[in-house]
């Protein structure tokens, strides 16, 4: 079932697909759906990123349901319809936790999910299920090593430099207040809130970009 589902999602445009065993990582309301399908899509698709994620998610839900399993699709963070009943539960769940548990990547010093191939340039969606999916090996430690580029380039000195590991998930990597106030200032000056330097500067996945952008039109 794993291989079929993974290949199907990859063929439809997913960048990485991982399966995670989340026993012990979920709160009461959703604890019975302890397997996760973590779907990652290349963020550089821009507007198409979210619609692709939603499409892949629907496909996964249909697949699992047709086999008689339960599902709870947690939509991408940027596409949360707040008006539905089930959206109240979304805040109980963290996509990055599922992604690291599924071995897609680790949490970098910049607080973002980093994949060895794509760096911090992935967008995530998750489908929780009770299907007995074979879990992938989780990512236990950060592979950032001695690299401090994101710390140096962060305009608001928000990045603490602490190192993530799966056994210590609750640790302050980014001072959210500083990051937010920088975004607010930026919005006030040039109208665009997003800074994104810590994404752009990350050396992981750059090769991948250069290779693909050589083929495509350079933006």
């Amino acid at each position: 079932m794993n291989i079929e589902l993974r290949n199907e999602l990859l063929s439809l445009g997913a960048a990485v697909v991982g399966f995670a065993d989340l026993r012990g990582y979920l709160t009461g309301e959703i604890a019975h759906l302890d397997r996760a399908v973590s779907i990652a899509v290349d963020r550089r698709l821009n507007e198409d990123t979210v619609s692709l994620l939603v499409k892949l998610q629907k496909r996964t839900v249909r697949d699992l349901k047709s086999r008689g399993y339960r599902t709870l699709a947690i939509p991408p963070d940027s596409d949360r319809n707040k008006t539905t009943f089930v959206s109240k539960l979304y805040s109980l769940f963290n996509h990055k936790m599922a992604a690291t548990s599924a071995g897609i990547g680790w949490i970098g010093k910049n607080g973002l999910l980093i994949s060895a191939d794509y760096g911090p340039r992935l967008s995530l969606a998750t489908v929780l299920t009770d299907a007995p999916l074979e879990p992938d090996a989780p990512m236990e430690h950060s592979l950032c090593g001695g690299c401090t580029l994101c710390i140096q380039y962060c305009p608001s000195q928000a990045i603490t430099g602490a190192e993530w590991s799966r056994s210590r998930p609750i640790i302050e990597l980014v001072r959210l207040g500083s990051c937010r106030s920088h975004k607010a200032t930026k919005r006030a000056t040039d109208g665009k809130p997003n800074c994104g330097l810590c994404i752009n500067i990350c050396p992981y996945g750059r090769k991948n970009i250069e290779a693909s952008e050589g083929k495509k039109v350079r933006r």
Partner: protein
Amino acid sequence: MATDEKRTELLAKLRNAVIQYDEDASKEGAQEALNEGMDANDAIFNGLVSGMEEVGRMFEAQEYFVPEMLMCADALYAGLDILKPHVKQLDLGVKGSVVIGTVEGDVHDIGKNIVKMMFDVAGFTVYDLGRDVPLEKFVEEQMKTDSDLVCLSAMMTTTMTGMKKVIDDLRKKNPNVKIMLGGAPVSQDVADKYGADGYAKDATNALKDAINMIASLKKMKDEVEARKAK
């Protein structure tokens, strides 16, 4: 008009869409029902609500948990949104208008929203005050809308005490208004002590109680129709 066969098929589709928490199927079924010229009331009560009744049973039997139940409710609303403009007002013999909200200091509104949904389905006019509602607001809204039912919800014992004040104030202004309480810390005892007329067991059972309410409404509707037929 839809044939009997088609009607049965579509009702099953709507019912299953709710049970299987499939929003797309629910929308599709609702649209098909309209295209076939089916009665919207029929599609809602014998399709969507019948599915929700089954969900209530499964929830009680602990086959479904909170997330499934919430997704089922979302699926029901998806179909309801399409069918509702075509609903003929039910003649229930009761004036259906209700003020509902979670009392001051309390932000827990899942149970309240589900109860609200069932009132929506039953064709009540619902004045939803939302959550963390200042206590005077309930009385004001009741007076303004002349609603005959006020539903108060609280999830915490600390905020529950606010219900007593609302009930006292409501009784002073309007002794005839019916008041129903719901929420985790509330019990029949509390409802009696506070002087409420009704009580929905607790947040997780609110759905079941709301369904019972709908069931009795359906019964009333059938009786009214039977009387008319005579």
